């Protein structure tokens, strides 16, 4: 047991801090001081510029191997980077769904050609990936996907509809599950496909999230021909009709260590404590301190988890607990902030925007009802 950082890790932190503080300030200045939300058309362009600065500085994907644009950082360093990223006030990552949801599956299931063709372009924000999991009738019940791909000479013909595709209207590529065995049911007969959105027969329609930003999209496929070589290295990830296990690996990482790091909530908690000091009564200051503890506990629990992973353990169903914790923590932090703001809370601002976003946490990446089922069944062993 040793809860101190090594000299190398301290150095890594110092380097990250300096780069991030300097560069985020420069980026902000270049976009008028306060760039608009990355989930709007204009804001997305500003945020792409940020992503490219990150890549050029070598900070886009710190934990990836150097050959794919990373710097081969350890999980510890990744945590440090995330902490510094949010402490410096850097913006949400508009490339996150590629980096955090698709890339782990590419690393695990992709051919060398796919890895070489896809990863560096993703890191550089040359290709922008959105996820195609949900359909109008496949939400929590992902296995009920009905979008289909028919095998034809030299490729696939796609039909169907995906929805709730985050930032789909601004992306260039989609990854998702398609039913390739029309006689199959549930999680059998599904293939994981990589689809350029420019493909003829693919239509993307953006629509507004709760906060009004065009953060969602529907994607329609109407006899869209997806050539086998439409993506370098091939459009099928993993085995044909083996898409479910590829998706589950992605879903595992989506729920797991990577999607929402403690650093993000530590930064919000620090802001909340400052707000409570400024305008809270005793009761509200106590609630703010409780929320701060919950954020700090997330950091400690993550350090404990990384300790286990560093000694060879595999991530397990504990990921469900992590998802429950951060999603409910995010709401707690913003709820208290709104209570501190009182009637002012209805005015548009970072807290009211963050509050609305926090409410999506218990819904996306597997609803919290599903996560509680998983925790009870897989961690406690309760009967299905």
């Amino acid at each position, binding site marked *: 047991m040793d809860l101190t950082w090594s000299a190398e890790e301290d150095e890594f932190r110092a380097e990250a801090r300096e780069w991030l503080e300097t560069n985020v300030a420069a980026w902000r200045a270049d976009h008028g001081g306060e760039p608009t939300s990355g989930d709007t058309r204009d804001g997305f362009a500003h945020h792409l510029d940020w992503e490219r600065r990150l890549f050029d500085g070598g900070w886009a994907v710190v934990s990836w191997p150097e050959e794919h644009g990373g710097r081969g950082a350890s999980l510890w360093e990744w945590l440090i980077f995330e902490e510094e990223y949010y402490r410096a006030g850097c913006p949400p990552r508009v490339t996150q769904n590629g980096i955090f949801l698709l890339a782990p599956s590419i690393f695990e299931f992709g051919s060398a050609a796919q890895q070489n063709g896809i990863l560096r372009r993703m890191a550089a924000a040359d290709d922008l990936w959105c996820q195609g999991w949900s359909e109008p009738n496949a939400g929590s019940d992902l296995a009920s996907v009905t979008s289909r791909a028919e095998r034809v000479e030299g490729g696939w013909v796609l039909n169907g509809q995906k929805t709730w595709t985050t930032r789909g209207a601004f992306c260039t590529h989609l990854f998702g599950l398609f039913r390739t065995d029309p006689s199959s049911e549930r999680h059998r007969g599904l293939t994981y496909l990589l689809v350029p959105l420019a493909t003829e027969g693919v239509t993307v329609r953006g629509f507004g999230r709760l906060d009004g930003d065009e953060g969602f999209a529907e994607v329609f496929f109407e006899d869209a021909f997806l050539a086998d070589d439409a993506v370098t290295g091939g459009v099928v990830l993993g085995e044909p009709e083996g898409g479910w296990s590829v998706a589950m690996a992605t879903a595992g990482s989506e729920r797991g260590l990577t999607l929402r790091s403690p650093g993000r909530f530590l930064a919000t908690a620090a802001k909340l404590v400052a707000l409570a000091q400024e305008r809270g009564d005793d009761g509200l200051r106590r609630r703010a301190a409780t929320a701060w503890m919950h954020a700090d506990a997330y950091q400690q629990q993550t350090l404990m988890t990384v300790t286990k992973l560093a000694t060879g353990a595999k991530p397990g169903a504990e990921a469900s607990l992590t998802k429950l914790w951060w999603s409910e923590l995010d709401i707690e932090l913003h709820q208290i902030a709104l209570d501190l703001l009182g009637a002012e809370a209805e005015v548009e601002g970072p807290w009211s925007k963050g509050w609305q976003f926090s409410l999506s946490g218990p819904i996306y990446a597997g609803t919290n*009802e599903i996560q509680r089922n998983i925790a009870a069944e897989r961690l406690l062993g309760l009967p299905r």
Partner: protein
Amino acid sequence: MNFALSDDQIAFRDAARELFAKEMTPAAVRAAWDAPAGELDRGVWNSLDAMGVLSLLVPEADGGLGLDETFLVPVLEEAGRVALPHPLVETAMVAAPMVGAVGVVATNLGGAVIPCACDADQLLLRRGPSLLLLERAALEIVSVDTVDGARRGGRLPDDVTGPVVTAKHADIEAALERGALGTAAMLIGLAQTMLDMTVAYVTERKQFGVAIGSFQAVKHHLADARLALEFARPAVLRAAWSVAHDEPTRSRDVSMAKAMASDAAELVGRKALQCHGAIGYTVEYDLHLFLKRTWALSRSWGDSAHHTDNVAALLV
């Protein structure tokens, strides 16, 4: 002891319900989001005026109906059910007993922004110890972006002056009480609609081969929502009685009503959004119209903590 609305009270409420069902659809609420400042449609407002709702609390001698808050509160619950964007609480509940029926009235008494500031005929403004009544047309109003676009919020510079309606502390306290009471009633209506929408959705929406409303977790979410509403509603109606009859407990009863209605509506809103899942999380679906109004109103005219502290102080 009789907690039931009278036939007259029911008739008033039902007339409002019928009017709103026809004229205040979700599409009409969306229109209020989109209309330029100062151009809020007055169709439904004129109908409310014709029904006497706007002058319900104005004495008969002054051309009003001379009725009391137990008539108006059920109407305001109906207004909440449809997320009426017009300043009905501000006009009929807060201003009318003081200044009579003088058109659309906006006020800064309720919170940080002045809802429908640019759409009003008159502004009832608190400035220091006084309440002023000003013609809107003479004022420079700055629009404020609010989470609920149908709030149509505005602000005024601090140095505005004009004719004083009252400088009596008791009058202002009473106005604040009526505002809190009316807003509590709106919140009950908002919560009822959000619950109704969610029950309909979870009954129809299927996942894993069954309606999601058959899952125990969803049942318990919505049972909690129903529970909160069941016990907040009588508190609001009782407060209406206490205000109407100037009971010694009126301040405490109003604070309890506002605290419980705010808590209940916030809870129902959370449950409604969660049980809807992603569909509720888009502005294309109607839920957000009610959810955002709930957030605005739960913290206007005193939030739950403010009113709870008032109850604590009055219990000594």
